[in-house]
């Protein structure tokens, strides 16, 4: 690769390079236009949007569109709902997944292979397939939730999120790279398996937790289908559901809708910006499976 500059460029390669440059330009345009136009429209007035000519930039940025959008509905409540749901999911699923991952990576027991195989198969089952039974099951928990069970409650919204087994898989992979001697030493010291997990493995889980947390957070925050099915009304509305409400009004205020769209995704973009490394790592760790 490094010697390329010394050699003369063959003619075929020049065509190759021009094609590549053009392809790159188109790609950048196609990827960037939606983002740019979302921001532009979010800062335009409605007459500007109704005007027929195309404008790349707003005439005068209407920053109040953002405040107006956030007054269109109870947005503090929606953000609170999404934040609580994401936080509970994150904490609970990280701990539960890590503990299970540790078992599959380190503790030998009779049906380990069989149970792990079931987990792998579970990973392949699309949540859309189990949508109806999960809904009807939660509805039947009338003991805790009243007449419609856990439907339209925080529990009903959160519990299914905690069940994913992808994290178990990631943690198992990660813990398998630890030397076995750690467990032997812990055993000598008289600590139980659980103590070894709690005091040795858990504190060393930073990297895998970071990746898993970023993915889990993005997944929960961005989820649309499950809140759509299990909640109704304002009380438990998440930010993604609230976004779609702009569409249900007669006239769509595109500027407010685009402003709200951007605001809703700001937490995701912040995480993406500052933890891009972990985001990418998590995606890649999932890809080297089996």
């Amino acid at each position, binding site marked *: 690769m490094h010697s390329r500059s010394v050699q003369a460029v063959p003619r*075929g390669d020049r065509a190759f390079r021009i094609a590549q440059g053009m392809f790159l330009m188109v790609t950048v345009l196609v990827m960037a236009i939606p983002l740019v136009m979302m921001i532009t429209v979010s800062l335009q007035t409605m007459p500007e949007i109704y005007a027929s000519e195309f404008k790349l930039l707003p005439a005068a940025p209407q920053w109040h569109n953002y405040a107006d959008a956030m007054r269109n509905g109870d947005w503090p409540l929606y953000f609170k709902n999404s934040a609580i749901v994401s936080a509970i999911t994150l904490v609970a699923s990280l701990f539960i997944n890590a503990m299970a991952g540790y078992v599959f990576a380190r503790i030998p027991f009779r049906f380990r292979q069989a149970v792990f195989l079931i987990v792998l198969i579970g990973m*392949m089952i699309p949540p859309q397939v189990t949508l109806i039974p999960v809904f009807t099951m939660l509805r039947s928990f009338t003991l805790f939730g009243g007449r419609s069970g856990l439907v339209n409650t925080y529990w009903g919204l959160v519990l299914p999120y905690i069940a994913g087994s992808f994290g178990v898989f990631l943690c198992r992979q990660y813990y398998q790279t630890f030397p076995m001697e750690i467990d032997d030493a812990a055993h000598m010291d008289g600590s139980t398996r659980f103590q070894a997990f709690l005091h040795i493995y858990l504190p060393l889980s930073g990297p895998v937790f970071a990746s898993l947390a970023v993915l889990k957070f993005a997944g929960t925050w961005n989820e649309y289908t499950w809140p759509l099915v299990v909640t109704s009304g304002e009380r438990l509305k998440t930010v993604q559901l609230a976004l779609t409400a702009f569409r249900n009004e007669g006239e769509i205020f*595109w500027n407010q809708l685009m402003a709200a769209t951007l605001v809703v995704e700001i937490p*995701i973009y912040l995480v993406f910006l500052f933890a891009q490394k972990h985001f990418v790592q998590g995606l890649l760790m999932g890809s080297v499976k089996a």
Partner: protein
Amino acid sequence: MQRARFRARDTRAAWGMLAPFLVFFALFIAYPMVMSIYYSFTDYNLNTANFIGLRNYERLTRDPVFGMAFVNTCVYALISVTLLFFLGFITAAILNRGLRGVAGLRMLMLYPYATSMTAVSMIFLMLFDVNNGVFNKILRMMGAQPSNWLFDPAIALYCLIFVNVWKNIGYCMLIYLSGMQTIEPALYEAATVDGAGEWSRLVHITLPMIRPVALFVLITTMVDAFKTFEQVQIMTRGDPMYTTTTIVHQIYQQGFSDFRMGYASAMAVVLLVVVLAFSGIGLRFNKTYA
């Protein structure tokens, strides 16, 4: 060899530490999975469930709307996957050459993947809007005929495919890129010495070396495409004239709008079979490569 036989305290610790995960797994994945299959043989409507044998499946074969949903989903999946497969590879090959600004380009391609499908759908609703949308404004500016986009039965599905490709291309690029970076630079150097140009290095070294990664991209994008719902629900609701309805959209419609949950479960089982078939093929090939 002290691990040859299982210790009783290990077995106890293993099941104890797996317990929280297994409870969630059983409640929200395994049991609903079984119930989904059971419901598909009943006329379950949220109140009563009578066993009706294969009648739901029989009805599926005669239901023109489900027929359209199935065909639409296949078309959507086939075109999306083909485009993602090739465009992802090309962009990764370009980025792999370490040009200036690669980090920025990678970020530009990945932000749609981090963005929720809800937000992406909102952005493209704005871009595709017939009267005030950006795409039609650009077309008019260039003197071309504006299009009806999502309201045109001939192209609505292709608009959704475009959105899907736009959102997921960064993910595919990332997976390809990780595969390319594991290839020994010495291979390329040897080929260059032997007079191989850029194009033939790509075709004869990169392409064969990343076959397992390419297979992974193929399977994940395929499975993902078969689960398409959010886009449809938010952007078109299956309109115009069912040209954009999909399998999961029909599950949602039948299950949660019309409460024909037995019938919807039969659709869910069809989806499950398709998805598991693809995942199974993926696992199998993965083993032969590894």
